[in-house]
């Protein structure tokens, strides 16, 4: 006998499903089941992955859901077809949006809206079984009668489960009796929560995590046994030996249900047009208008390219999509919102003419096929960066224009990582929080849940971790199994879809943790539903540029950001010195190190830099050969003359994905679509078999074009070697424009630019203190916050940067408003005057005094602090209408805080140093003992062994091709930063000082390494600095 599981939970039941979607489908197929239904709790997130897995394993996907009703009872719903699926989406949407977040529930009346859905009476939490178990058969009968009349007798089944629980026998007998009395069919299910019996333990632990209890706690919601697995038809037959119709009915239901997402469908957005207009025609008109504006004179090459692109766009049904994006760009320009198109869309000349991107793809020789071609498997999408503070305004515009019923934000599946898995499952396994917390914190944040065991043996800072003890074995087993499971739905940074039909026919919606309503699908799955994603991203750099240029224009009205010259020598000189902290995409230590060697002299070098400092090229040791060729130290050669025009701009190296496409076309004569397929296979590390097949095809076609077999093979191998590191040139060019221009602004207007960066934190690679240090290094003073002068934000003041009041920890918006408002009435004359006239609470007043914001009114901070109670009494008296307002305040007396104490308060309250850098205080003793500063290292010879000291910054371990660990970090001091590299042998000895808990500066011993203009330290030893423990100590030695 055959059987189909019609009640099955995946990890998208969030802590109530313990096996991955694909594993469940694979198992169902192995058990020779013709179909499987997925029924997660109030959620359809698994739908697309489930449908794709079902196609892969050759079974039918029946999409369903287990809903919770307002009375907490459950019902199992199965969609018969797409209309049924849409009905489920709408029901689930209502269950989420009509209730507080996290408490989704369906109102009974909403069930009346269901169409083409088969309903099963549910598990023990269904109202009918629940009434029977409570001994209220009459209530169960009434409920069953109600559902029968609501859904129709043919659509409502009594669900029988034999999970070998106490009472199952009785319950099933009564359910059968009920079905007979009401002439209803019965159907068997196993309420599947995992694939095999052995996965029960994880399910139980997840249940405990969901219920915030431990495994030792007794709770009726926990499973009693491990029977909720995907049982075979034979096992189900045994369990339902007395009721075979319950099994055969699973097949009857399966026959009624159509496979979900079996055929591809597309739901392009519809751009609103005037009567008589059609999208393709309007798009053509706009593109040609744009071309006229961009080029003035339309050459045959432009005409040919645009005709080609428009043809493909029309063929693929994308005119409306382009119009939607064009309209967003138009709206942004109209509203003065800075934006920049990025990604492969910059390969399109049409996008350039429409003002969507700023990259002239024709002039750069970029290939449209990389962005769009008729044979492309995935859907192309257009990504646009908007200045961060107005991005949401653009999204609001989309909602208003297309209607909220047609628009949805895209979700992200936030999955368990090592830290979250250890913490949540550890608590469920009854490990105390104080024990778990340090274990979690020592685990690298990027680690996957299934990497914990390997990292315990690999990372020195974990070598003494208690996780090695046998008592943690079960926890680590659970973490292994849990890797990649979704924990909750988050909101994608900028993903948005616009549908041609009401969006809730395609996806359920729910409230995100951040507030906006999101789809229940992530970016990949939502495309699987036939929707085309728009990425409207928020980029703080664009806000920085906008603010900086506005500030600059106050003193230099000639600045035109769009017309910034791309060949400014001073800008390139700054880049070549590696002085790029704050420069978009060029500020990381790796990029700074590259720039000191690369000696960029033109915009193309910046474009190449974008592509070079990526995990691929670094891992593949590709950076140095590229730089050597660029500097003429290595000969540039081409395997075939046809390759020269393609690879000339990258010195014979395949750096960009577009080049793979061009080689495919030029050497093997591939069509654009075939060549893009080659690119996709190569850059996505597809299977060895696919690569081999493509290799044969490439060689065969090349030989047909007169190229020798061995040469064709060599070219293919060469492409293979480089192409997996390839980067989209269009994207690199789009980013490089912003990158170069931000460098130009820093070079010529550093105070304005760094002020803007400080106002848009957090952003970029470095914290405010490093930005402040960098500004100071460029001889721009950082002025302390001052209640008599500071604005809310950082401001430029006579060429210096004044710290804004917003930067002070704990100061509320109300306090800030009160300070500014009172100051506008009259200047503050004393601390007493300040306290009395503002509404700043006591703890914030203390912070203001401690960080020096009241120094201009009285420089004796200890005294002012001691007087605060008195000032506050005066404020109270004033508010009560009594007391002498301008009573004489006391005369400062006693010793003020030491300079070190003041600096310490300033840093802890402001997050940056307004006075002396802490390393400066230690410099005399460090110097006395032979420790070098970052400034000293600039003049040191390569290969020399030195000791240096500084505060640790950004330690990280990027992947390497060899798999060996290389650690990069920086040491910060009062002059700048020292970039350091630590190889695996040293890391094994000293890694715990780098990745363990930090307590002040580190001492590093190593060899000076000079490359180009850059200096770094190859570290041989690291030690904690004893000064950190006792800064007054004079006993520091590097011996």
């Amino acid at each position, binding site marked *: 006998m055959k059987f189909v599981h019609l009640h099955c939970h995946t990890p998208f039941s969030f802590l109530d499903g313990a096996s991955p979607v694909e594993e469940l489908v694979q198992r169902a197929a192995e058990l020779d089941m013709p179909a499987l239904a997925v029924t997660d709790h109030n959620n359809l997130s698994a739908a697309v992955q489930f449908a794709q897995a079902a196609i892969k394993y050759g079974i039918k996907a029946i999409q369903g859901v287990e809903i919770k009703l307002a009375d907490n009872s459950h019902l199992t719903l199965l969609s018969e077809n797409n209309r049924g699926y849409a009905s489920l989406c709408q029901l689930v949407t209502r269950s989420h949006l009509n209730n507080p977040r996290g408490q989704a529930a369906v109102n009974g009346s909403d069930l009346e809206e269901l169409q083409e859905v088969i309903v099963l009476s549910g598990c023990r939490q269904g109202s009918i079984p629940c009434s029977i178990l409570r001994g209220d058969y009459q209530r169960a009968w009434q409920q069953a009668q109600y559902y029968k009349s609501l859904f129709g007798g043919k659509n409502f089944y009594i669900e029988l489960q034999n999970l*070998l*629980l*106490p*009472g*199952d*026998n*009785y319950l099933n007998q009564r359910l059968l009796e009920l079905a007979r009395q009401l002439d209803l069919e019965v159907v068997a299910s196993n309420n599947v929560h995992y694939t095999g019996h052995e996965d*029960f*333990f994880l399910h*139980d632990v997840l249940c405990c995590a969901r219920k915030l209890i431990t*495994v*030792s706690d007794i709770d009726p919601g926990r*499973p*009693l*046994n*491990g*029977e909720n697995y995907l049982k075979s038809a034979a096992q189900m037959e045994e369990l339902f030996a007395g009721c075979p119709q319950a099994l055969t009915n699973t097949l009857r239901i399966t026959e009624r249900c159509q496979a979900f997402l079996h055929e591809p469908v597309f739901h392009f957005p519809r751009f609103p047009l005037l009567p008589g207009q059609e999208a393709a025609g309007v798009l053509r008109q706009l593109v040609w208008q744009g071309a006229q504006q961009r080029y003035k004179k339309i050459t045959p090459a432009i005409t040919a390219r645009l005709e080609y692109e428009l043809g493909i766009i029309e063929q693929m049904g994308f005119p409306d999509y382009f119009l939607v994006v064009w309209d967003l760009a138009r709206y942004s320009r109209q509203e003065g919102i800075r934006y920049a198109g990025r990604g492969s869309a910059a390969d399109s000349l049409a996008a350039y003419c429409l003002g969507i991107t700023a990259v002239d793809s024709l002039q750069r020789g970029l290939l449209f096929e990389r962005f769009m071609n008729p044979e492309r498997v995935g859907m192309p999408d257009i990504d646009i960066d908007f200045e961060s503070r107005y991005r949401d305004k653009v999204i609001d515009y989309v909602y208003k224009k297309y209607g909220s019923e047609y628009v949805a934000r895209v979700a992200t599946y936030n999955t368990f990582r090592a830290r979250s898995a250890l913490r949540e499952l550890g608590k469920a*396994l009854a490990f105390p929080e104080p024990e778990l917390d340090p274990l979690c914190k020592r685990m690298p944040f990027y680690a996957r849940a299934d990497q914990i065991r390997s990292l315990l043996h690999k990372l020195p800072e974990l070598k003494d971790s208690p996780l090695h003890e046998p008592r943690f074995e*079960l926890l680590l087993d659970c973490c292994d199994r849990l890797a990649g499971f979704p924990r909750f739905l988050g909101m994608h940074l900028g993903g948005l879809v616009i549908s041609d039909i009401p969006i809730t026919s395609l996806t359920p919606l729910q409230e995100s943790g951040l507030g906006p309503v999101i789809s229940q699908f992530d970016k990949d799955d939502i495309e699987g539903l036939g929707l085309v994603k728009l990425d409207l991203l928020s980029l703080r750099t664009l806000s920085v540029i906008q603010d900086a240029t506005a500030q600059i224009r106050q003193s230099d009205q000639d600045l035109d950001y769009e017309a910034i010259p791309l060949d400014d020598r001073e800008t390139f000189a700054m880049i070549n010195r590696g002085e790029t902290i704050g420069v978009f995409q060029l500020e990381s230590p790796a990029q700074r190190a590259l720039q000191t060697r690369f000696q960029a002299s033109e915009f193309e070098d910046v474009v190449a830099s974008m592509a070079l400092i990526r995990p691929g090229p670094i891992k593949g040791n590709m950076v140095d050969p590229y730089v050597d060729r660029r500097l003429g130290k290595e000969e540039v050669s081409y395997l075939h003359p046809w390759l020269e025009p393609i690879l000339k701009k990258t010195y014979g190296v395949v750096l960009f994905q577009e080049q793979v496409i061009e080689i495919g076309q030029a050497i093997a004569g591939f069509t654009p679509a075939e060549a893009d397929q080659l690119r996709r296979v190569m850059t996505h590390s597809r299977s060895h078999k696919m690569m081999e097949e493509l290799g044969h095809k490439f060689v065969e076609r090349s030989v047909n074009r007169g190229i020798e077999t061995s040469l064709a093979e060599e070219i293919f191998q060469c492409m293979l070697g480089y192409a997996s590191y390839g980067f989209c040139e269009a994207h690199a060019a789009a980013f490089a424009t912003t990158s170069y221009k931000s460098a130009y602004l820093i070079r010529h207007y550093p105070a304005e630019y760094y002020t803007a960066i400080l106002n848009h934190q957090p952003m970029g690679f470095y914290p405010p203190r490093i930005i402040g240090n960098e500004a100071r290094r460029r001889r721009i003073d950082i002025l302390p916050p001052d209640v008599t002068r500071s604005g809310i934000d950082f401001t430029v003041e006579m060429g210096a940067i004044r710290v804004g009041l917003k930067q002070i920890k704990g100061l509320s918006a109300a306090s800030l408003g009160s300070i500014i408002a009172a100051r506008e009435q009259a200047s503050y004359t004393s601390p007493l005057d300040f306290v009395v006239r503002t509404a700043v609470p006591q703890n914030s007043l203390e912070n203001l005094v401690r960080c020096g914001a009241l120094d201009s009114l009285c420089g004796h901070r200890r005294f002012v602090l001691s007087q605060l109670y008195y000032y506050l009494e005066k404020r109270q008296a004033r508010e009560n209408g009594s007391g002498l307002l301008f009573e004489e305040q006391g005369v400062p007396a006693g010793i003020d805080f030491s300079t070190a104490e003041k600096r310490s308060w300033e840093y802890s309250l402001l997050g940056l140093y307004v006075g002396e850098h802490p390393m400066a205080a230690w410099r005399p003793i460090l110097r006395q003992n032979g420790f070098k500063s970052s400034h000293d290292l600039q003049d040191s010879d390569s290969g020399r062994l030195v000791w240096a000291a500084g505060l640790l910054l950004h330690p990280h371990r990027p992947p390497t091709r060899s798999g060996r660990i290389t650690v990069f970090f920086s040491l910060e001091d009062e002059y700048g930063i020292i970039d350091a590299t630590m190889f695996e042998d040293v890391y094994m000895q000293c890694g715990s000082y780098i990745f363990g808990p930090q307590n002040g500066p580190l001492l590093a011993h190593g060899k000076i390494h000079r490359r180009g203009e850059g200096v770094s330290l190859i570290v041989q030893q690291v030690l904690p600095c004893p000064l950190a423990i006792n800064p007054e100590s004079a006993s520091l030695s590097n011996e």
Partner: protein
Amino acid sequence: MKDYLPLQVQCDDNHLPLAVYYRERSLQVVARLEYWHDTGCWWAGESEKYFHRLILEDRSVREIFYDLAQQEWFLYKTYD
């Protein structure tokens, strides 16, 4: 785990109890009222148990279980 009284149980081919030897008497199983599985405190190393609620020929209602790890039967509960 609590100490439970070990039992001798005669089973059929499907390992279902036919008779229970209790206090030197063999009591035939008249009816099996319920049957369930319980994984117990699995995290503490406890093994899975198969429970049966039975009516025996002396009209007593008793719950017995088979311990999968020990491969032994035990008396779990007797209803008055």
